[in-house]
């Protein structure tokens, strides 16, 4: 399959069986922070509970979230950035956020799945 075919197949599956989420990058800090959002379709699956409790037996869920690059590319997310960045800024990264069912969660890791060098899927490990 070509990268385009892989993305199209994922987009069709996400349209049929996925759910809406919001991918968020935060620029600035504190009261001067700015949210850069893009709406995406995603597969959201519970993965496991974190080994370490947040406090006193309260465990935190780890979710696996699968995104297509399609909505990110269409929105040209996260918009204009400083030139010369070593990593493609459109790839979700640690400490970006995902809003799932109205709840803000943190991205711990992102693994781009590539075909012929083109990212065709992002698998995110998400907590919160």
């Amino acid at each position, binding site marked *: 399959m070509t990268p385009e075919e892989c993305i199209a197949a994922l987009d069709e599956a996400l349209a049929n069986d996925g759910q809406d989420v919001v991918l968020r990058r935060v620029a*600035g*800090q504190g009261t001067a922070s700015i949210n850069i959002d893009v709406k995406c379709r995603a597969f959201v699956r519970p993965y496991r509970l974190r080994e370490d409790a947040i406090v006193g037996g309260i465990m935190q869920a780890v979710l696996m979230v699968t995104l297509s690059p399609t909505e990110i590319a269409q*929105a*040209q997310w*996260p*918009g*204009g*950035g400083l*030139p010369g960045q070593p990593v493609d800024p459109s790839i979700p990264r640690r400490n970006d956020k995902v809003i799932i069912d109205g709840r803000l969660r943190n991205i711990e890791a992102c693994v781009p799945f590539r075909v012929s060098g083109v990212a065709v899927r992002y698998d995110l490990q998400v907590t919160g």
Partner: protein
Amino acid sequence: MDNPGVYTLIAQGITTPLSAQAFTPITELDGISAANLACVMLGGSGGTTIDVLAQTSFDDGMTWLDVAHFSFTTSSETKFATLNALASKAVTVYAPLGSEGVNDGLLGNQFRGVITSVDTYANTSIALYLHAK
């Protein structure tokens, strides 16, 4: 037009002074006929001035032309401008925007933001949004 929607031209925390720092462009906006630009400054402590330019290009990013200039000092503000390429306009000599204002009717198929800041700001961010129509 191709790809109408809201785009983020700049979302950046501001600390040390920036000298005409250009951001990477938003592209593939062929057929754009109108644009809303909104520029937001949050915070504003410590520095002196921040000037934000919105620029457009007709030649695939080789040359950039000013379409709007927003100026801020040390308080949170939101400023906006509307640009329209459909209204008839007499021949006009292009002039860079050295102070706050717009060059209306000038809409290429790429846009970018440029920041110049004076002195060191703390807890301050700038966002520049383009609604391409």
